[in-house]
């Protein structure tokens, strides 16, 4: 598999349209890889493809919105949904990207157990045999576990989680759905998000972010992977996705590049609860 990816990268460089390609490279630790930015053919040698390629490669393209040449990205299933997410959020242009899709074999990341899209949804060239996809029954297991608790137990469960949160904003910086130019938390002069590190401010941050990305979350699991304090961040957004499924019909985000967010549109005969 790795040689096919390397050949795809070399072909991309020969075409002359691609400025750099984002992939993975080894680190001094056997169980960790780090994103690699290949600018020329020699860099392609450093590319690796193993079960430790857990970093998402897609969001780095956001930092280079007006590239002279195309940005090459090697996409696993979830990365391709991240790219689709950012394109439908009008943050990336499809013509600026050269997408090398690779059918994923599942990585060393708990989210891969419930992955429903090992085959990339969007690509210029595909490597590997497309697999049949189906939504994992375990998708909302975590949400149901919390729903089974009493309200006070639920609150205390989340209170302990938000006591741990150290507000490093790694979950925001890695999330492809969190792609605002200036995040509300950075405009702290306006008082939306306090700077204090206490449970209350962490709750406001946690809930606001869950609500901002809830209807566009592609369930890539990066937020839970990067959280240094291991908070169950996904179960907040998956709660919203579960409600969206129940109320507005089955949805999976980031599958096409013209997908309007659920809260960005409406339907005249939505369920009526507030009469």
């Amino acid at each position: 598999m790795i040689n096919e990816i390397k050949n795809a990268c070399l072909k991309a460089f020969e075409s002359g349209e691609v400025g750099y390609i984002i992939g993975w490279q080894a680190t001094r630790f056997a169980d960790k890889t780090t994103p690699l930015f290949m600018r020329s053919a020699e860099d392609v040698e450093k590319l690796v493809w193993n079960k430790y390629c857990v970093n998402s490669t897609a969001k780095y393209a956001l930092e280079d919105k007006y590239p002279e040449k195309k940005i090459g990205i090697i996409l696993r299933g979830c990365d391709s949904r991240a790219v689709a997410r950012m394109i439908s959020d009008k943050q990336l242009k499809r013509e600026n990207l050269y997408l090398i899709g690779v059918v994923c074999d599942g990585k060393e990341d708990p989210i891969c157990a419930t992955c429903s899209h090992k085959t990339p949804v969007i690509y210029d060239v595909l490597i590997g045999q497309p697999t049949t996809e189906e939504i994992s029954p375990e998708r909302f297991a975590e949400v149901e576990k919390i729903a089974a608790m009493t309200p006070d137990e639920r609150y205390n469960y989340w209170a302990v989680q938000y006591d741990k949160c150290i507000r490093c904003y790694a979950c925001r910086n890695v999330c492809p759905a969190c792609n605002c130019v200036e995040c509300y938390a950075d405009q702290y002069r306006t008082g939306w998000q306090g700077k204090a590190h206490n449970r209350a401010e962490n709750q406001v941050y946690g809930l606001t972010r869950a609500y901002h990305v809830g209807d566009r979350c592609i369930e890539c699991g990066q937020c839970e992977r990067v959280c240094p304090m291991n908070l169950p961040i996904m179960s907040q957004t998956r709660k919203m996705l579960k409600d969206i499924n129940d109320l507005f019909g089955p949805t999976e985000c980031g599958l096409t590049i013209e997908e309007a967010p659920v809260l960005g549109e409406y339907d005249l005969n939505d369920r009526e609860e507030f009469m």
Partner: protein
Amino acid sequence: MLLPKEKLSEALGALAAEANVIAPVKWEGDVFFMPYKGGDVCLEGNGKLPPKDVLFPKTEKMYSYSIAKGTMTEHNDAAATILFGVRSCDAASIERLDKVFLEQGYKDGFYSAKREGLAVIAMGCDKPMATCFCTSMGIDPMKAEVADVQMCPVEGGFTVEAVTEKGKEIVKKWDSLLDKKSKAKPAKVECSLNINVPEDFEKKLMDMFESPIWDDVTKACLGCACCTYVCPTCYCFDINQDVHGDEGTAFRCWDSCMFSDYTRMAGGHNPRPSKKERLRNRYLHKLAYYKDRHGKYLCVGCGRCIANCPAHLDITAFAEKAMEVE
């Protein structure tokens, strides 16, 4: 002198009677320095977060005021604390913070009150983790810099050695528990991760301010504050007000040089606009600026930033790449 392993919780219980004891305890799946309430202590590896928030809390009230009455009351209630289970790297970080908060220009009233009330019981390291590299930063895993009591794990218990007056008082409290005859000595320990830092590495780093190495070293960084908030020697803070109508409280809280508004000025100018300048400033502060000012590296080799970085960046990989640049 040796404190047998099974007597440890009894020893800590004795201390907890008079002062509040902070010890590494397993909570929610990780080890954290938390108030000790009986039960056993977890001495594998190191705390997920450093013990620095005993001296430099995440959020700390400074003073409350009433706008109408124009009155101002200071909050500086520091209780005597005993910090148990501090590894040599974290103890070295306390020494680095002391230089900043107690000497550099002014004495910080909040920090110094807590520091005087603190007794440090250091615990040597017999099994360093894969990401530890304290020996490369000139730190002896078995001898902590600011320890009041130095303990080292040996066969069947811990050697105990009082270093300062405070330490002697603590050891006196443990008198009945100690086995005075044992001559056990801790074994020499070497970290698996090593970088040999050359002489005046900081001068070379400071001359590399414009070098192109910074572009590809910082490219994979996500610009989050994970590395700064798990780092034992990061001491940047922000000052803010919590205002409620007529009265308010000024507090200081952790801040990170990796945030976008850290150096953004009122007019909007920002000398460090992107993650490249910020990460460069962070690496240089750890490996150059602090040494240029105080003679010691600000990085104590605890490896927490390597273990927790979402993009798996690594300060030792950067240091090695910087050493190759002429």
